[in-house]
């Protein structure tokens, strides 16, 4: 074992730094720093996505054959750390991190050929049709129906908490195609064109004031059979594979480190009106948590690199990553004191010029804290992660 970087890895780091210096705009950085929601809006990440696409760096985890850069774990780590450190926007995760890996593993030749390049180019923007009003943590109880009619499925039902459905032109959705005694066995995985007739969305505003989520209604929506991934009624297998990547892949630690250091900069700048009390031990506790999380991520990356799946470790990362995020947003609230009472009603925050009551560096802290409560709920609530760890890691 060795933590150090080789000469090649150091050269790669310089290359990444140079790329960032050339292509990451101040506007993109400001947009990301004023994003309180968990998913960054297209207006913020567009220019960065385009620059990465031209360089072939959009999807660090994809193998070369599908247009990924074919990086080693160390290179991915360097890229993610440097991007996060520089405050680069997060790209939309639904294509690159979620449906992409599923298509690579289970998709048809046509699906791979058609959809994967469009994810990389940014031409397609995806959203995730998993949860329903009656199926949250108990996802397998979903009731959106797809009935076969010749070369199409006719889909009826409703999806909820659909992040960025108002931006997306594609949705991957779990639908019920059979009523089986074991509910998981009657589910299929469909790729839905959001511009199809019968698709409509309703915004859901969070307690942080953001429009991130939606309810999506599907009324007699026609989906071609060729847009079913894998076999009919085997969708649960693909859905679980996706969830492992949603929860486990990537480097939460790099982002968390960036967020913590942003708070530290805030304290340093507030010399004339410093926070009361000593926050250094809280900074340390969070930093130590991030150090541990980063190490679990690095070890998992080696596993994925050698062909393994994230498995239940992804639940450990999801659970702790979101808890650490919430401890950072809480620290932010405590650091700005009375200013945490001031509510800015306008959205998006990054479009507000200089006329807000609070300065830029404090503008998103309250919304982050409020929206941040969702982190231990979406993608499988913390309690569900405990259950997965008990079952799969401990064989309980």
């Amino acid at each position, binding site marked *: *074992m060795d933590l150090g970087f080789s000469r090649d890895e150091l050269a790669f780091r310089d290359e990444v730094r140079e790329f960032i210096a050339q292509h990451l705009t101040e506007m993109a950085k400001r947009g990301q720093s004023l994003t309180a929601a968990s998913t960054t809006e297209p207006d913020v990440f567009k220019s960065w996505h385009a620059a990465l696409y031209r360089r072939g760096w959009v999807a660090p985890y994809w193998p070369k054959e599908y247009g990924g850069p074919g990086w080693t774990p160390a290179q991915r780590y360097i890229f993610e750390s440097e991007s996060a450190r520089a405050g680069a926007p997060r790209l939309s995760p639904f294509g690159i991190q979620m449906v992409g890996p599923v298509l690579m593993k289970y998709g048809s030749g046509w699906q791979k050929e058609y959809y994967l390049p469009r994810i990389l180019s940014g031409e397609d923007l995806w959203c995730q049709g998993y949860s329903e009003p009656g199926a949250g943590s108990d996802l397998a109880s979903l009731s959106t129906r797809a009935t076969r009619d010749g070369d199409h499925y006719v889909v009826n039902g409703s999806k909820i908490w659909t992040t960025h459905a108002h931006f997306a032109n594609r949705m991957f959705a779990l639908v019920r195609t059979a009523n089986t005694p074991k509910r998981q066995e009657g589910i299929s995985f469909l790729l839905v064109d959001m511009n199809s007739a019968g698709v409509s969305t309703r915004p859901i505003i969070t307690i942080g004031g953001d429009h991130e989520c939606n309810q999506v209604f599907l009324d007699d929506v026609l989906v071609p059979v060729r847009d079913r991934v894998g076999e009919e009624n085997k969708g649960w297998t693909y859905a679980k594979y996706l969830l492992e990547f949603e929860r486990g892949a990537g480097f939460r630690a790099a982002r968390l480190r960036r967020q913590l250091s942003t708070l530290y900069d805030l*304290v340093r700048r507030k010399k004339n009106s410093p926070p009361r009390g000593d*926050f*250094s031990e809280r900074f340390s506790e969070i930093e130590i*948590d991030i150090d541990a999380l980063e190490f679990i991520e690095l070890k998992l990356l080696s596993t994925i690199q050698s062909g393994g799946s994230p498995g239940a470790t992804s639940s450990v990362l999801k659970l*702790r990553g979101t808890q650490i995020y919430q401890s950072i947003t809480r620290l932010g609230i405590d650091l700005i004191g009375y200013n945490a009472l001031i509510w800015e009603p306008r959205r998006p925050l990054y479009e507000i010029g200089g006329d807000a009551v609070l300065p830029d560096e404090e503008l998103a802290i309250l919304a982050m804290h409020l929206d941040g409560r969702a982190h231990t709920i979406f993608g499988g609530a913390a309690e569900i992660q405990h259950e997965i760890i*008990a079952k799969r890691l401990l064989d309980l």
Partner: protein
Amino acid sequence: MDLTLTDEQKLIGEAANSFIADQYSFEARRAIVASDAGFSREIWADFASLGWLGLAIREEFGGSGADAVTLGILMEALGRGLVVEPYLATAVVAAKLIDGLGSKDQRKALLEVIAEGKSIIAFAHVEDANVPLPRDIETMACSDGDQWRISGQKCLVFSAPWADTLLVTARASDDPHDRSSIRVFVVSASASGIRTSPYLLLDGSRAANIAFDNAPATLLGRNENAAGEIDAVSDLAIAALCFEAIGCMQALLDDTIAYTKTRIQFGKPIAANQVLRHRMASMAVQLEEARASALRAALMATDAPERRARAASGAKLKVGRAGRFISEQAVQLHGAMGVTDELNVGAYFKRLMAIETMFGSPDMHLRNHARAWQGAKRTR
């Protein structure tokens, strides 16, 4: 960057686990702890023949020059076995201090006998029970030509009752705050002017308070500041100790899972209750984080002092907190049986308590770690 275990590391892990399973059962350990000596010379000789006592020693002095991760893998197995023999004191702390400070002749003379299992050496450093990593040293050393003499009091010298030789920290100047005057001396445990008061520790191991009154001593290495080397060895010892704790915690988690699956109450295994399942999941998560922190500290054990010390403090905090949570929950989930001396759960509990305190408590390490954030501090 490479985070995979080498074949050699895997082999050591397997060998250590099977040795513990075969030779160091809970009953065998109980007999060793209860014996007059309180440790086993046979086991120590086995450690030597397996090459473990020379793991941290370079090849030219009879060891195998293994890195901190390899050492950690062995420590994890020793933790699982609740080994009381003075591995950390002699094969890690003393060996590394001698290697870092000693002259070539001293290294040759002292390290070879450690690797062969012929010498047990303890590190007499702490002087105040509330200061586990002392910065100031009261014990004084006076030179008398080539010979030195030391006077002072040391306490909680781990493994001292078994040692034939002591490494003693003392100050070579009158200024009690002059860290640059700290030296390490080699003192025979049977030298004149030494009074040793041995006692038991809560985990079944042994320690002593030692008073030095003009005891004859040999300077380890040259007459120069040893504080930096002591810090480096302490950080390595913390990483090793954290791995030992990982072994204890993993054993407790395994035992607790096995117990709750077989213990029937209200007509079903108690592991069927969600409140217990989630408790054990939390134990597993904390263990995973502790393991990552320990590995990180080991990999950073040879980094620049500040980075190394922060990694060690971070590991000591995570491992200490996890050790407390896991051991308390293991006892809780074992019910009344967990509080008896009949199960090894209590023995792990006690060893984890000891580890939490040794080389500085989690709170102390958090304070040390937080110093780097002090720019953020504007206390009023």
